[in-house]
Each structure stands twice: as C-alpha cells, then as structure tokens.
C-alpha cells in the first residue's frame, strides 16, 4: 500500500470520528433545568375528574379542531369505550370501572422530561422547549419515527391529508407564551387538572397523598416513569386499573438508542483501521506463502 492510500484511509477515519462526535447523544437532550427556566406541567387528580369532557371541548376550540359534542346523552355513549387520542383530538377522557368504583382519566401527551419522540426526530421537528412543552414544528419529514418511539403511543399522523401533520397536545404552547393557562386547565370545573411548575405540582401531589392516605395510592404516575413526565397523575386505585402500563420503568426512552449512537463514532473510526489492518495482514500472509512456495519450487528445481 502506498502513502496516498494510507492517507486517504486515515482521512476518512478522522472525518468520521469528528462527525461521530458531533452526532453524540446528549447534546440535544433536555435536562430537568435548561437555561434557568423550569419545566411546567399539569397535575391530573383522577379522584376529582367527573368525566364532563369540558377539557376536550376547550382543547378543540383553542386549536382549531372539530369541537366534540359533550352533552349528557353524547357522553353516555362516548364514554362506554376506552378511546385513544386522535389526529383531531389532543385529549380524551376515558371511563374505567375499578375496584373503587368509576374513575375518569384524561389522557394526553405526557410531555416527558426526556421524550422519545424528541430524541428520535431527525430534523428536530419535535422539540422539548426549555419550559417543558413538547411541540411539533412544520419542518417535519413525516417519517413517523416519533410514533414508533413514544411509549404512550401519543403522536398521531394525519393519514387522510396530502400535507399531513403530526398532531398532539402541546400544553398550549402559544397560550403559555401569552401568559395564559392551558385551555383544559382553565375550564376544568373540579380542578382535576392543575398547572404549575413541575416542582410545585409534585409537591402538591405529595401533599394530597399524605393528607388523605386512604384516598390516594402512594404513587404519583409520571414522577419517575420513563424518566419523569410533566403530566403527573394521582389515583385512588392501582394505575394498571385505569389504563396505565405497569412495566414502563424509569429509564428515559432516549437511553435505549444511546448505546448505538455512542458506538457510531467508535466503529466509524476503528473500522477503516481494522480493514486496513486485515488487508495488510492478509496480503503479507499471502506473499509469505508465495515466497515459501517459490522456495520449495527452487529447492525442488535444484535437485
């Protein structure tokens, strides 16, 4: 091998190492406190929710979505089955029959501290704002990897549109920037939804649990699940009875792909060297074999 080829390979290796380090995870991860601002969130107290669905109506009104019918008769039929959020409904309220009676649970984007969707977006269309809001932006390429990566299956894709968006709750990001509460929080008649900084609402949740230990189970869902979320839930019954997964774990979801991402620069740097090494070794071995063979021939030839 000559100098030129060697330099080409080294150059490739250095380039890939640099690129790899730029790609290293952790740079785009949102920590608990970014730029000195705190995360905001919503405390959802399922013992207070009465299933009136005013949150669904308010959410639809402020986001330009079709407003659902929340009259008594409509609620009777709608609440009979457990619904998911859709591309036209950022939040839904579901009814569960549990060991302690009927429980209503509003479901929406959890605005995780370390969102899988944000980490998996190749163009940073899903952003975790410094204030905790996880929002979608229109530089999205529609790859739907965020849908694959969300453990709560929240992002919804507009399959029926030629120019499709990803739709999900954005904690009323625009309203927040005008200093106003999220729409659902503002209309909730029983204050089952309470907004504040994540620290405030965690404190409030813990205070409620310790103040009435027979009325809440001693766990706040979202305090640590999936690395912690900004929508946190209180409940009177175990969370798997009201539609939450028990096997979520506390590892933030971006960590699952971090192993691969950290290996990329290492492999990118080492593989060309490895190829070089193997190639040289093989060639040297083969040349030696040819030499030996020729020596044998010479020896034979002489006799």
């Amino acid at each position, binding site marked *: 091998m000559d100098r030129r080829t060697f330099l080409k390979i080294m150059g490739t290796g250095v380039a890939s190492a640099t690129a790899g380090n730029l790609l290293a995870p952790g740079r785009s991860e949102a920590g608990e406190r970014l730029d000195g601002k705190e995360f905001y969130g919503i*405390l959802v107290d399922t013992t207070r929710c009465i299933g*009136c669905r005013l949150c669904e109506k308010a959410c639809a009104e*402020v986001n330009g979505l079709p407003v659902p019918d929340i009259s008594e008769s409509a609620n009777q039929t709608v609440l009979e089955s457990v619904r998911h959020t859709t591309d036209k409904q950022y939040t839904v309220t579901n009814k569960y029959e549990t060991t302690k009676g009927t429980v209503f649970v509003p479901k929406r984007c959890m605005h995780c501290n370390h969102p899988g969707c944000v980490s998996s977006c190749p163009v940073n269309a899903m952003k975790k704002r410094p204030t905790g809001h996880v929002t979608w932006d*229109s530089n999205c390429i529609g790859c739907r990897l965020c849908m694959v990566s969300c453990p709560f299956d929240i992002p919804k894709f507009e399959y029926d549109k030629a120019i499709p*968006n990803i739709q999900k709750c954005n904690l009323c990001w625009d*309203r927040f920037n*005008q200093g106003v509460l999220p729409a659902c929080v503002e209309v909730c008649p029983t204050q089952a939804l309470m*907004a*504040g900084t994540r620290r405030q609402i965690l404190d409030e949740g813990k205070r409620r649990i310790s103040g009435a230990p027979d009325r809440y189970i001693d766990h706040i869902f979202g305090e640590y699940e999936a690395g912690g979320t900004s929508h946190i839930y209180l409940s009177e019954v175990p969370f798997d009875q009201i539609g939450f997964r028990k096997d979520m774990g506390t590892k933030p979801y971006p960590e699952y792909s971090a192993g691969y991402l950290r290996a990329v620069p290492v492999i990118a740097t080492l593989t060309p060297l490895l190829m070089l090494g193997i190639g040289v070794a093989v060639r040297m071995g083969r040349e030696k074999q040819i030499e030996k063979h020729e020596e044998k021939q010479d020896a034979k030839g002489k006799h």
Partner: protein
Amino acid sequence: MSKKILFVLISVIYIILIASGLTLVYSVGNPEPARQVLTAEDNKISIARTEIFGKLQRPQVIFDHKKHEEAYKQEGCVTCHPMNENKEIVFTFPKKIEGEGATAVMKAFHDECIECHKKEKKGPVTCNNCHIKDLANVEVDIPRAAFDFADHNKHVKIMSKFGKDDCGQCHHTFDLQEQKLIKRHGSEESCASCHDLDRKKGPQLAAITKVAAEKGLSTRRVSHQGCLNCHVEYQQKYRQMNKEDVHEIHQEKMGCNDCHVSGFKQAVSCSECHVPTECSKCHTGKYRTVAELKNTPRPHRGQNDIAFIDIENSSMKGVPFNHRAHQANTGSCRLCHHETLQACKECHSLTGKPEGNGINIANAYHRVQSEQSCAGCHNKITSEKECAGCHYYISGMDVETMNPKKNTCAVCHSGRKDQSSMPKPLSTPAVREEIEINVLARDYKAAKFPHRDIIDNLVMISNSSRLATYFHRDIQTLCRGCHHQSNSAAEMRIPQCRNCHMVADDRMNLNRTKLLSAYHRQCLGCHEKMEMTQARKCLECHEASAGGAAEIVQFRNESVVKQNTTTMLNVWRPK
C-alpha cells in the same frame, strides 16, 4: 423422490406453516370469551388443589357432588368421606393419602375415584373424561355461609326443645395443659376465634390456633364436620320417622303441596326445611342485614346493658358505654371483640402489652383506621351515603388530633356511670330559602341553590340516626359540612365561598382551589358521595347560556390553528 416434488412439498409445508402462524398472530389480543361461573345451586365442586399442585398440568376436574350424593343416599356420606376416632364424618377427600407430596395426593384421588367408577361400571375412567379441557376456565363461586344471630337463636331454640340446652353441644375450648378439648360454660367463643387460621391471633389464642392448624382444622373443615354430622344424624332420624307422625306434625301449618311438590308418591327431603345437608341451603349468598337482625335476641354471655369504661390511672373521665344499644346494631360480636369476648382493657393496657399486639388502650378505642375501635367504627358509618356528603371531606377524630377541643371529647367522656340523656333532635334554623350563585356565569346562567331544603334534609337525616343525634348536638355541626372553615367565634356572619376562593387560579397556593372548582367539588362531591340521582349534571343546576355554546376560552393557539385550517388537498375521506 424427484427433486421437483421435494421442492414443491417443502414449499407447500412452509406456506401452510406461515398461513397458520399468521392466523395465530392476528388473533392475539382478541377478547377472551366470558368465563362460565357455577354457583352453589349447581352443587358442583372444583377439584384443583392449586396449593398442592401449583400450576395445573391438566384442566381442573368439575365434580358433580349432587349426583354422587343422590346415588349413595342409602349408604351415606361415609362412602367417600373418612371418619375420625370420635365416629364423626370428616368431610375431606380423598379418604386416605399414602405418603406425602403432590404425587401422593394425585394417586389417592385417582385410586379412590377411578376404582369406584370401575367397580360400579359407571362414571369416567379416562383422563380426558374427568379433566375436561372445555371446563378448564370454569369458575366455581360458592359464597361464604353465614351463621348469624338469627341462625344461632334458632339452634338454641331447637336444641332446648330436644333437651340439649347446654352450649357445650357446639362450643368447646382447648386446654393447653391437658392437650384436649374441654367445655367451659361461661367462656364460649365464636368458632372463628380458634379455627380462623388465616387471621393472626394474639399470644393467648395463637397457641390454640397452632394446634388447630396442625390438625388441619380450619373454619371450613370444622363447620362442615361440626354442622353436617349433626344434620346427617338427624336427617336419618327424620327419615325413619313414622309417616303418620310426620303428617300430624306438619298438616296444620302447611299445605299438601308444600312437601308433595311433584305428586303424592314422593315428598321432598326433610332437609329442605330442617337439618339442611345440601350446599346451597347454607351457602345461600344472602346475608341478613343489621336492620333485619335488630330484634333477634343476642346470645347471653353475662354482658351488662351499660358498661362504664373507666381505665385506671388514665387522665380521661370514664365513658358510659351502652352495650345493649351497640350489640343490637351489629351483625356479629366479633366486630368489636375481634379476638375473644373479653373487655378491651384485658388485653390493651395504658402503655400497651404483647397480648394487645402493643396497641395501648387509647389507640384501641380511638384509632380511626381500625374497624374495631369506637372511633374507627363510627368513622366507617360516616362513609355511608347519608353521611358521606360531608364526612368524606372531614378528617376522622383521632386521639392524635391536634388541638383537641374540650367539647369534642366530653361528648363521650362524661364521667357519669349512667347513660346521660340523648341530646335533643336538631331543627332547621332561620336561614335563607334560596341562594342564587351568579358570580361565574359564562357558558351557563346563574345557579339557584335551595339552601333551606338542603338543611331540612340534613336535619332529617341526622335526627333519624341515634349516632348522628348523639354527636350532632349543635346545628353548627351541620353548617360546617359546607362552610368548612367557618369559625363562629370570630365571624359576624357565615362567610361566602368567594371570600376565600378566588375566581382565578391561585398560583401561589395550589392547595386552595379556584372558585369554580370550589363550588363544583363541594356540591358535586357531596351529591356523588350521597349517591344522589338528581343534581349530578350541569343543566340540572344551571340553564345553558342564551347565546348558545359560547367560546369557552379566549387566546387560541395561533400557530396550531393555522396548521389545522390551511386548505389541504383533502381528496379522500377516511372510512
């Protein structure tokens, strides 16, 4: 085989495997069919013994007990069930298990069942005819049999009619010194005191329960053994009675068809009304309520009508406890006398001792979370729907309550040996009849609130309960249900909700809800806890706004709205 045929064959096999695999994969997650549940009426028993066998390798066996019972009516229960040394039938199966462990149990079942089926030439002998796959998910749900005061009273009457009026017919205790059963009149307890093996007992009873556990004498076993032996004995006696005597006894009180249900050649078994031996006759699933048992005489055990509870060296005045009134309000003595029928202070001392599991006497009477303590039981009653409207939101009285007020404790701790007279019933004070709440009219018009009617209702509920009347000595106790932070000593008049609860969210004090939710949680919370059928929906309290569905909130999410209303190429509609 030629290569072509081999290729085709292998491809076909693979395709079949994939097709069946895909069918399986796409049927995962589909809801399971509903489980069949057998009740006591079916008289079938599920033989699974998962405590011995763990996870079953073959489906459970659903055993038709009724069929076997009828087949062996003449031979009796001893055909299958063993007898003990006292010539009592022990209602366990199999009769004899040789060896230990799951295999021995299985072998015993197989030996006794299959051998008999082979001998009689009737009944299943192969594996799949007993371990039926379709019945693997069947659930046999036999409710607990109740033996309440009415049943006890009936037995006392019947047995004294037969000249057996000492309690020793059924009640016994175990003498640890002599290691045998003895009868000690005056200290009869409930069967469960010694034979309830699931409940942890204090040191006094634990030794006895240990003996019972070693012999496998659970409540289930001894109740079948104790009750059924006597019933079976008398059933046979009744069967041997003279027809004329039977007719003479019954003719006056009953009609012919009551016994001769299907023709005069046969009559129903005596155990239809007397000495029942069929499962469903005792395991009815119906339990008499406290109200139904109110007039049933309670067993005599030397209790006083009024017990003056006065603890030595305690700093509180004594409590005149109306035992007579309380025993008429429970379905079982064990509700309070959770261990034995002794007085509380025998096991619970001032500082706590091992007999009382370390719980001192103050906590024994006042612990709100307990079911046996005074405060705990009263707290439980306040969770009933007539009371829960207010009491769900009021924390229970507890000996650790901060700032105990003199008049709270004095309600019980009067220090007088006789029962102080019951306080006067409440009456509605002069309050406003209707109140209009219009501070928050937005989507809905003002709510008109029938203030006086509500107080009338609460007064009526309070006056109809002795417990409530005893504790609600002052109408202020009812007002505080809604005006919950009201302190009449400092106020000129009762404050309105809006005095403390702001219209907007209180960001500083997340604890104090905004006015909208203060109203809704207070009102709706009470209505929900009281299980009211009216006044639960929005329009029942306030009419909708005249302008129709107004926009709930201002300040839209502008960027989102733009995204959602841009003209899209929306050719195909979803199905």
